[in-house]
């Protein structure tokens, strides 16, 4: 299934590069193992055959756009979630719309190390990955193993409702039927949630992989890196990490499109998506807003309507 689309991506990339419409195509290429891919920076038509499309295409390539598309025309291969990040970047004036050609790919769900491990797959044994109907097909030494989509995909994919890119200049693939698990708010009292996060943040080593991998974290100077204001120090303890992660979650309110890259990148396995989803639920409830759907609208927190509710209940 992936092969056909892979071919179309390559053809499109070739066309765009040869015509000079873009100088760079961002996509994925084979990684160092069959269960990983790595971002590809394709600058010539000769290189387009390195581009791949398979269930390991996890990176949200929108993260590179503020660096590469501010002053140059680039194409980017985008899954539906990635396309929503691109919309957010356009809304927030980080990238001019005319500089980005979106090669949109419909997506049934992506796997990563964590989701494969959770599905009890030994990573060393993975020889290949593909989709087949409602399943993820895993090539192993013992032959092909089929896992139901819902068991094998990343956490973020399980609740995903958008399986077709929301914005594309060329679109490939058929939209699989969306069958999302409902997003549930975190259970428990305020104290319990507080205790839960305090425990989680003990592990944070402040490597900032979560922030660096996030397409919405494009600030040239993050509040956490500012020595003058010292919102949070570099100390790796739960309370400082709390400030960093909560601060980051707040900054992502109405902007996080739920790609799950932060959680995937975290070497300490912090369940960051739990936090982001919680914030997203509040935004949805208060403003009836789903981020990254329409480049022609304002970002929800950059926009005010007289009938907006005040979360504190004042008028």
């Amino acid at each position, binding site marked *: 299934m992936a092969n056909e689309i892979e071919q179309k991506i390559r053809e499109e990339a070739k066309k765009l590069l040869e015509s000079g419409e873009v100088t760079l195509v961002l996509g994925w290429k084979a*990684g160092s193992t069959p269960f990983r891919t790595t971002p590809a920076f394709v600058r010539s038509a000769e290189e387009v055959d390195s581009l791949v499309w398979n269930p390991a295409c996890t990176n949200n390539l929108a993260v590179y756009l503020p660096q590469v598309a501010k002053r140059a025309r680039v194409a980017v291969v985008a899954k539906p979630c990635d396309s929503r990040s691109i919309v957010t970047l356009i809304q927030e004036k980080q990238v001019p719309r005319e500089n980005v050609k979106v090669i949109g790919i419909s997506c049934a769900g992506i796997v990563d190390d964590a989701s494969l491990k959770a599905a009890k797959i030994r990573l060393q044994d993975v020889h290949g990955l593909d989709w087949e109907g409602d399943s993820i097909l895993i090539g192993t030494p013992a032959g092909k193993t089929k896992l139901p989509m819902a068991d094998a995909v990343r956490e973020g994919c399980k609740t995903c409702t958008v399986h077709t890119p929301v914005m594309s200049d060329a679109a490939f693939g058929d939209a699989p039927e969306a069958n999302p698990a409902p997003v549930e708010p975190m259970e428990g009292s305020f104290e319990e949630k507080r205790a839960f996060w305090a425990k989680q943040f003990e592990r944070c080593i402040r490597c900032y992989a979560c922030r660096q991998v996030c397409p919405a974290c494009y600030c040239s100077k993050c509040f956490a890196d500012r020595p003058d204001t010292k919102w949070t120090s570099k100390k790796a303890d739960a309370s400082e990490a709390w400030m960093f992660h909560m601060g980051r979650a707040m900054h992502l309110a109405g902007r996080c499109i739920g790609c799950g890259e932060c959680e995937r990148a975290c070497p300490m396995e912090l369940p960051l998506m739990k936090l982001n989803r919680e914030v997203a639920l509040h935004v949805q409830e208060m403003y009836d807003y789903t981020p990254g759907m329409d480049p022609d609208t304002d970002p929800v927190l950059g926009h005010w309507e007289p009938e907006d509710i005040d979360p504190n209940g004042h008028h």
Partner: protein
Amino acid sequence: MPDKVISKSDLRQWLTSLLADHDVIAPVDREAGPAAWKDIDGKEDIEIGTSGLLMAAKEYLLPVHDVLFRYKGKKGEQTLESPEVSKKPKLMIGLRLCDAQAISVLDSVYLEGRFKDPYYAARRENLTLMATVCDDPRWSCFCTSVGDLNEWAKKVDALITDLGDKVYVAPVTEKGEKLLSTPAFKDPADEDVKKKNQVWENLLALPKQPFAGKDVSQSVSWDAPIWKDMADRCLGCGACSYQCPSCTCFDIQDDTVGNTIERYRCRDTCQFSDFTLMGAGHNPRPEKTMRTRQRVMHKFKYQIEQFNIIGCTGCGRCVESCPVNIDLRDVLSKITEQKA
């Protein structure tokens, strides 16, 4: 002293009894994430197997939050106070062999040269290392491609091999022997020796990488295209170096806690642009290409020139933790290929 075996329950009892006059540092599982190094109190479930992505031993030797001193007292009369250091002999058990080798790198940086690092030295001195032979290397492992495991094994005090319900213990140094000379350790059966040898053979049989046996320091060049290739993809996070067992760079910061000012050091990395940014705005390594190059050059060239040791032990943590799959093994293979 001949090799010994000990049942896992006896091992646990032995470690608990050691706590009377020792600090015992062992890997302890947590609810999620890699197992952590802990100065144990005897109640924990220690994890001496190495199949999990155990935190590097530097987590103990160079804590992520390492207090240098506290500045406290009434205004105008403040004094500097060093943090308390345990004087007990220490045993670190369950570290991977690659991490034991990484301690040699840390030793070079922190104990050699004009200045000795007193905080590192206090933890390092009188520290006995009982390293575990990996019985299930991870997909990212490449220790046998950067070093000679037989040599690394000589630098620890004892080697342990997990045999399921019991543990095979091979003392290496006198220090190791002394510690193990208690009746809890029994003579191994032929079967145990066989199994242990098999684990060692399996580990040595780890597939060699294309750069194995080649001198990276001679092949690596200042303006190789690989730096740009890495810099394109690199997102500038610190996952690789923070998880690296032999990365040693740190930052020094002050925090005010109540009436006390605490000066501490914490992890830092050459991968952050702030690392070399000076107050007045000048940055000698402003480009990502320079920073990706620095990390590789430092480990595979500069540290060899400085200390005659490779600053990498093939533990694979950077390989696993890189969110964009910049695989150091590929980088090194490309570097040696280009020159060949």
